């Protein structure tokens, strides 16, 4: 427990506190009056209002489109299901620059819709909402679908035998069991869209701004650190509240449900209703998730003879000091290091949280570990720059800074994946082993490890994929001579010319393939689906 707390304190709490203090302290005195000044400004209230309503709209739209898919993945069996489940998860780990670009290529000027019907959605709120659905579809499918698959269908059948209509049986039996999972998924989607940055920046144009975008603008462009600090605090409070409610719903979900093996609940689709639903879900996935990705791939192939891919090995582009393809290697290394850190920190935290004698304080730490997901990346990035620049922790010149920032984002996923599994390990097994004379180390190795090994691998895989795609914090601290994949994509996109654009598409495609491969491996490894992501 001590290690995760120390890690969290040094690499999250301290840098964030340092940058907030820099903004709110003038001549050594705290300027708390700034808080009311800032939040009463009409512009800022406009931002707050937009942040909330677009998050609500995005969440509603995501639930509307993804809940049928959760059902289909849970209850129906069809060829290619595993592959499809991996496909719908790919967007979640893709960096926002790539997604923003894919959507621009689809709905922007000269995009596919523009060519076909003259429809342009860029700089409208529709592009933002669609991209948010694209990103968070998997959150609902995995969280709700995972549980749904394990609910015993016989309970619903029993209700129908007793005379309930299909809808009535569903409403009385399945819905109450699912509700906490739906609520948890909705809250996660709300959290991710509430703190949306890249999507809003790229697709929204200059007119739309969420809190997170405004923090970025105030810090990085206007250099009004005190306004940024106030906004950071506002976001902090909001995210804290969301996480508290989330922790509560998750705990409710852990109340006893009769769970069965997911393998036996799925059946071949029967009847027109199920076939229609399956078809509708497949069409939604094709249009909403696969199409943007396909457009991306197609654009990367525009040059004859894989020209854009071949250009990636060329160091003379001028954009970087190294060939863009070097970023692939850099990214893999960084993500590897970040995964190692996240697994150690997150694993230790999960182990501490899973103990039955864990008190309230420890459980509070659970929600705290999620905070990095909701705190502005620019705040963390700038915080790193000013807080970690002196001995004994002079890390600013060090490459480890990037993996550290990425591990902050990866660790919550490790905790969320490991925790349910660790909690499910029957304590009596450990006691029995101890009674039979096994040392604590041997108990862990012989009892815990075999049970959590898969969960550990899945957690590591997720942390790896998330680290690969992390953009917000990395862009502030990555060394210009060692860009990661997402950073390289962003740089290429900001350069003029066809070749740079094509290379950006090609690099994005590579990143996508790596993420998809990682997720496919996870699908094969994953047997237990109680994990929350």
């Amino acid at each position, binding site marked *: 427990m001590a290690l995760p707390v120390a890690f969290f304190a040094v690499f999250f709490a301290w840098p964030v506190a340092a940058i907030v203090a820099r903004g709110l302290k003038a001549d050594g005195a705290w300027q708390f009056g700034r808080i009311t000044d800032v939040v009463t400004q009409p512009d800022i209230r406009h931002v707050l209002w937009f942040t909330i309503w677009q998050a609500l709209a995005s969440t509603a739209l995501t639930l509307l489109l993804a809940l049928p898919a959760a059902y289909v993945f849970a209850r129906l069996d069809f060829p290619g299901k595993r592959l499809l489940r991996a496909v719908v998860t790919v967007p979640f780990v893709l960096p926002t620059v790539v997604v923003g670009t894919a959507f621009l290529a689809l709905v922007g000027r000269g995009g596919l819709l523009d060519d076909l019907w003259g429809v342009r959605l860029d700089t409208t709120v529709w592009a933002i909402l669609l991209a948010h659905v694209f990103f968070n579809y998997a959150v609902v499918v995995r969280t709700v679908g995972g549980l749904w698959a394990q609910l015993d269908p016989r309970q619903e059948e029993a209700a129908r035998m007793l005379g309930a209509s299909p809808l009535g049986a569903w409403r009385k039996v399945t819905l109450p069991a699912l509700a906490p999972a739906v609520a948890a998924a909705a809250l996660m989607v709300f959290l991710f869209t509430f703190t949306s940055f890249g999507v809003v920046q790229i697709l929204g144009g200059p007119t739309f701004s969420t809190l997170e975008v405004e923090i970025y603008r105030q810090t990085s462009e206007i250099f009004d650190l005190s306004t940024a600090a106030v906004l950071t605090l506002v976001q902090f409070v909001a995210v804290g509240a969301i996480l508290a409610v989330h922790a509560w719903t998750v705990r409710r979900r852990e109340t006893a449900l009769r769970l069965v093996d997911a393998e036996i609940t799925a059946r071949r689709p029967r009847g027109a209703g199920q076939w229609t639903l399956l078809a509708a879900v497949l069409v939604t996935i094709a249009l909403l998730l696969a199409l943007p990705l396909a457009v991306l791939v197609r654009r990367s192939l525009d040059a004859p003879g894989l020209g854009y891919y071949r250009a990636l090995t060329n160091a003379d582009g001028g954009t970087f000091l190294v060939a863009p393809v070097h970023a692939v290697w850099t990214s893999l290394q960084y993500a590897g290091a970040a995964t190692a850190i996240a697994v150690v920190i997150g694993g230790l935290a999960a182990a501490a949280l899973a103990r039955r004698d864990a008190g309230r304080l420890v459980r509070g730490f659970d929600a705290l570990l999620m905070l990095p997901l909701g705190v502005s990346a620019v705040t963390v990035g700038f915080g790193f720059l000013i807080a970690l620049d002196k001995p004994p922790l002079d890390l600013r010149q060090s490459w480890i800074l990037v993996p550290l920032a990425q591990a902050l984002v990866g660790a919550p996923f490790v905790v969320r994946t490991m925790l349910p599994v660790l909690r499910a390990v029957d304590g009596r097994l450990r006691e029995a082993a101890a009674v039979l004379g096994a040392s604590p180390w041997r108990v862990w190795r012989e009892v815990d490890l075999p049970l959590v*090994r898969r969960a550990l691998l899945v957690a590591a895989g997720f942390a790896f994929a998330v680290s690969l795609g992390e953009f917000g914090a990395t862009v502030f601290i990555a060394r210009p*001579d060692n860009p990661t994949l997402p950073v390289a994509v962003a740089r290429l996109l900001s350069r003029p010319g066809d070749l740079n654009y094509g290379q950006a598409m090609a690099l994005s495609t590579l990143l996508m393939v790596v993420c998809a491969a990682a997720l496919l491996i996870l699908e094969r490894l994953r047997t237990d689906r109680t994990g929350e992501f």
Partner: protein
Amino acid sequence: MHNKTFVAVAAGLGLITLSALTGCGSTATKSSSDSKTVTLVSHDSWAVSKSVLGDFEKQSGYKVHVLKDGDAGQAVNKALLTKDNPQGDVFFGVDNTLLSRALAGGLFQPYQAKGLAKVGAAYQLDQDKHRVTPVDYGDICVNYDKAYFSEHKLTPPQSFADLAKPEYKNLLVTENAATSSPGLGFLLGSAAQFGDNGWQDYWKKLKANGVKVVDGWEQAYYQEFSGSSEGKKAGGDRPLVVSYASSPPAEVIYAKKRPSTAPTGVASGTCFRQIEFAGLLSNARNPKGAQAFIDFLVSKEFQEDMPLNMYVYPVLDGAKVPAEFTEYGPAAQHPETMAPGKITANRDQWVKSWTSLVLK
């Protein structure tokens, strides 16, 4: 089989981690405490010919390490945040719109560059203290698509006032003044032209006349503007764009087949002058090296190399400007200017008013 998978994945992860620990460790950059290295912190647009930089390294004995740190505004802000323990020795790329912020923040320490006497006095905005040295200038001007105007038998606009006229309705695209430096330059130019009180009325007229605002220069110039070669391909339909006086020569130099005249022109009465400076960072670890590098920035060799690398004009008297520049994109004769102090005093308020006036 599962055991094998586990071992394979674990081994893979381990290998990657190991290589990360060893591989990156060796490529991590040396800190500038090394007195033989000068670290330059700059924005993403920094560029110099390899041979010219090589000459400096040979003659001075310093090795130059370049840290490109985001766009101009971001690079300045990051430098300000880290000024007690700077990331390098020299900073290049603070312009007159941000100069006061950098000076007031104590970013630089004084150094009078060798050869400064031959740099035009008009560019020396910190002449008393020499905390910054002017390196280049450029003009932010409205560019027009020549083909569009000849097809429509329309005279291209010449001045700020022209842009609000009905014959130019829905033709102009500009950048967000809050996020883009040409966008800000154009706003400041209009404020210099119409005065502190008049510019808002002017922008109301521009808005009524259908000005389009996008976030960045890339989008404006390469997506919306019908005159650039990329814009043509992207289906850009705005024949007027806020860009640079050096954009027409760039169109010629980068064309697949060099045209006899530039496809675009500059509305000469719509320009705002941007001057870029370099300075010796406070608390630099290698001040000697930094000074040598600043001298190099105003040397004839660098000044003449600069235009075709960064598309700006030299500040050194007598530095030769490439023929393409004089032919296709002469610097504006009477650009609008504004004192850095005045910019600092008003910038944030103006940008705020501009945002609610034009974007909301």
